[in-house]
């Protein structure tokens, strides 16, 4: 006997038409009523084209949704969501296969494929999926309403959505059980639906008439629940089902973390940055609406963790609330002009632009760019800064090209006794070392610069510097919102590079590296720019750099601008290993690494609110028990030295730049 079943048993083919009408109506209702009015709100934002590389975008959106790649990165709730999704998709495909057979293939081609062995496995997989989905739902309920993780926000959408899903799944099993009880109790096929069979066993003695009545009622209940669920999507947090894939499609596809350069040459533009929502783009508003409040960003935000008034998630919630507070009005509604105050200045200044939020966000929301836009408004339109010390440093960058207020003429002074030529003295060099402000002026970081020269020379690389012709790359002031000063500095640096025909730049500062390699492209710089770690890792692989292995133990801190902004995780570790190092990783490392507190221009600011970020990170390093904290960023080194000194733990853990460790082993 061939395994199969009568589809639409008990309800009959006559249900097909009302079913299509119902689903048709609910889908139209959902799209027009729900999403259209949301799209109108998105359009209050500034225009922005995201229709390039459509195939890549579409592929990414489909792949990351169907395989839940960004969701399952986070173990636990993410895994459960993934399992639930896969199960639900299996159930959905099952329903579609039924639909395909009964309403397309059977009537038009007189064929059936839900038969035989295929039907057996079809039944079994649907049953297991339903069971897994129910288990995961209980898990969700347990987490949200019993465990209640810190920071997880719930509203009525959550319990309504969860209840609907649970009811849909349960009524599905009841339907199956009733049908089995009435038609399959004498067939082997019933064992291929174990959950349905369990239900069937408990209702078996009702008799066929009662079973048919129950089946009819539950069938329609199930259908109404499903339609209700679909209609509920645009009006609740369930809209993430649609908005996240759409948001992934429209996401910023790189280069990672690159900011938008403002056009400062167009004299007709008189406002800069974002004061209100309508100064942000439509994609920014879509971002805020696509946020499902999973709080992964908040859990990873170094500002939130140290009691600053910033949470990337809450920022999205605030923007969304503002966007939808006064719908159906044109741009610049009264409610949205208060964006800066709604978000709060302290929150805007607290961000270190470390990208922990963006890199973890399963919805690919871009938080940092919005914060920078608000900072641009504050600095360029109001002349406001997080504190007077920051304004003084920015003024100094303007006057002397460095934030310390030290004379520009002495920028190359550290290299004099080493005999490093400036390019004005000789352009006969292999690479130009862009030292940056810290390695040029800060005593501690000058040691790192000297070691970099030592390593270059050991590897037979001729290196020159710009000396007094080098200026701050502009990264900290740009991240603080001072696009005007940044562009001035960028143009001066680039014209110096061009003046000497520079073709290859090496820098040990990840902030300079990120700026020169990515951000300067907007101003016409397209030459090789390498960070010291990848540069020396390359020389090591080529055999030009020889290190004497000498065993040591250390932990390694990933600079945000090397790691999350540029994906450089392996090169520094390879170098440390080659030098004889055993790396005891911190719990939060690599992509999960925690900011030292120096990014986003915060290196120039006093940290007056909450716990200090550098202290927190140094304590994490201490927990590894390693005596050495290696890093590869002048800001990180400065922050860690400050933290170690302030806590009097310099004897327990020594912060070092990894170039120093390498140079000790030449």
């Amino acid at each position, binding site marked *: 006997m061939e395994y199969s079943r009568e589809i639409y048993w008990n309800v009959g083919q006559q249900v097909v038409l009302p079913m299509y009408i119902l689903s048709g109506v609910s889908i139209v209702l959902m799209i027009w009523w729900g999403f259209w009015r949301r799209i109108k709100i998105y359009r209050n934002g500034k225009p922005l084209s995201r229709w390039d590389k459509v195939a890549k975008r579409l592929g990414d959106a489909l792949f990351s949704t169907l395989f839940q790649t960004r969701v399952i990165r986070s173990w636990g709730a993410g895994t459960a969501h993934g399992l639930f999704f896969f199960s639900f998709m299996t159930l959905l495909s099952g329903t579609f296969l039924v639909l395909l057979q009964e309403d397309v293939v059977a009537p038009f081609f007189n064929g059936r494929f839900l038969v035989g062995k295929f039907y057996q496995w079809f039944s079994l997989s649907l049953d297991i999926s339903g069971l897994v989905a129910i288990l995961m739902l209980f898990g969700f309920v347990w987490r949200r309403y019993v465990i209640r993780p810190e920071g997880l926000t719930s509203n009525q959408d959550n319990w309504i959505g969860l209840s609907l899903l649970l009811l849909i799944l349960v009524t599905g099993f009841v339907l199956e059980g009733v049908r089995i009880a009435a038609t399959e109790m004498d067939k082997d096929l019933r064992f291929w639906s174990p959950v349905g069979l369990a239900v069937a066993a408990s209702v078996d003695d009702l008799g066929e008439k009662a079973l048919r009545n129950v089946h009819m009622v539950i069938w329609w209940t199930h259908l109404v629940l499903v339609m209700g669920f679909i209609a509920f999507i645009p009006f609740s947090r369930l809209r993430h089902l649609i908005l996240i894939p759409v948001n992934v499609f429209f996401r910023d596809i790189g280069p990672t973390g690159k900011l938008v350069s403002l056009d*400062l040459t167009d*004299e007709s533009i*008189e*406002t*800069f940055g974002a004061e209100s929502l309508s100064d942000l783009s439509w994609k920014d508003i879509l971002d805020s609406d696509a946020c499902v409040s999973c709080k992964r960003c908040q859990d990873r935000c170094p500002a939130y963790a140290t009691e600053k008034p910033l949470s990337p998630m809450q920022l999205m919630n605030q923007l969304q609330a503002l966007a939808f507070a006064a719908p159906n009005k044109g741009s610049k509604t009264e409610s949205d002009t208060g964006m800066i105050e709604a978000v709060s200045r302290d929150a805007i200044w607290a961000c270190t632009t470390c990208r922990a939020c963006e890199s973890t966000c399963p919805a690919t929301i871009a938080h940092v760019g919005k914060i920078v836009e608000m900072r641009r408004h504050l*600095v*360029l*339109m*109001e*002349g*406001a*800064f997080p504190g*007077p010390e920051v*304004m003084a440093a*920015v*003024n100094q960058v303007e*006057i*002397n090209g460095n934030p310390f*207020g*030290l*004379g*520009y*003429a*002495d920028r190359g002074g550290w290299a004099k006794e080493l005999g490093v030529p400036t390019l004005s003295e000789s352009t006969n060099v292999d690479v130009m070392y862009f030292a940056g402000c810290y390695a040029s002026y800060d005593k501690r970081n000058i040691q790192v610069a000297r070691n970099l020269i030592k390593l270059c020379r050991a590897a037979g690389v001729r290196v020159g510097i710009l000396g*007094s012709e080098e200026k701050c790359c502009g990264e900290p002031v740009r991240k603080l919102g001072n696009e*005007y000063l940044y562009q001035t500095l960028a143009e001066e640096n680039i014209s110096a590079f061009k003046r000497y025909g520079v073709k290859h730049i090496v820098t040990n500062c990840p902030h300079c590296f990120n700026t020169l390699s990515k951000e300067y492209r907007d101003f016409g710089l397209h030459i090789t720019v390498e960070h010291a770690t990848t540069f020396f890792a390359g020389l090591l692989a080529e055999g030009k750099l020889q290190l004497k292995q000498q065993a040591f133990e250390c932990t390694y801190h990933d600079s945000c601008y090397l790691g999350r902004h540029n994906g450089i995780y392996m090169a520094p570790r390879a170098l440390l290993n080659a030098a004889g190092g055993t790396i005891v990783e911190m719990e939060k490392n690599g992509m999960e690494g925690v900011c030292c507190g120096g990014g986003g221009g915060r290196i120039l600011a006093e940290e007056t609110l909450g716990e200090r970020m550098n202290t927190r990170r140094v304590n994490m390093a201490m927990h590894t028990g390693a005596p050495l904290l290696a890093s590869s960023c002048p800001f990180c080194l400065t922050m860690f030295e400050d933290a170690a000194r302030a806590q009097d733990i310099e004897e327990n853990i020594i912060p070092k730049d990894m170039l120093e460790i390498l140079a000790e082993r030449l």
Partner: protein
Amino acid sequence: MKILVCVKQVPDMASKFTINADGNWYGEQGLAWRMNEYDEFAVEQAVRLWEQEVGAELVVISIGPARCREAIKKALAMGADRGVHVEDENCFKKDPYQIAGILAEYAKGEHFDLIFTGMQSQDRGSGQVGVLLAGMLGLDVVTTIIGFAYQDGKIRVKRELEGGLKAVVEVSSPALLTCQLGLAQPRYPTLPNIMKAKKKELTLISVDDLQQLPSLSQTALVEFPQRRKGGLVLEGDVNDLADELVAILKEKTTVLARK
């Protein structure tokens, strides 16, 4: 109401200074230039008054070579209405009397209600230009102000005295005020104002057209200060150290004289 602010462009004090070939001033090589810090406070206070008095006109003037237009532009970006650049390649050779004379020659026909200057310049530091200018124009002058209020022609300022004392002084306009650091934190110019500043009126006047007075003094020689001996480090038992310190303070200073 017409307000004038006098500003000077000076080298950033963190620069590495050299002495020029004639040995009578610093050399200009390797210097970063900026607005005299005291003048920044003067500009800020003037802009705040301009914001308070609707319809007021705020003029900024500076004497110096072409580069000093950057300082004028900064003041324009901070809010001044128009700039006057008195072109003079050799202003460093002029003494405060002659500089004040040039400014007075410009200001006398303009009938300013209030003139703000820095208390002194960071490079020459004579502290005389403002006072001399007031004298030449026959204006009341209050120096070293750290607080300012204006209401219907009445000016109420706080000025710094010796030993941490402060005095409140009232004068009527027209008057001249020399500004001390801390008077009013200079603002950071907004980008739209920086853009606007580029289009504001900037009048160029040759110094020869305004120079009526001679210099009364000349700078004979500029030298770096002699290197002093290093500090004294006391070591040993704390009780002995305290006695030693008291002895040194009594012998070399007057801080313990009162008791």
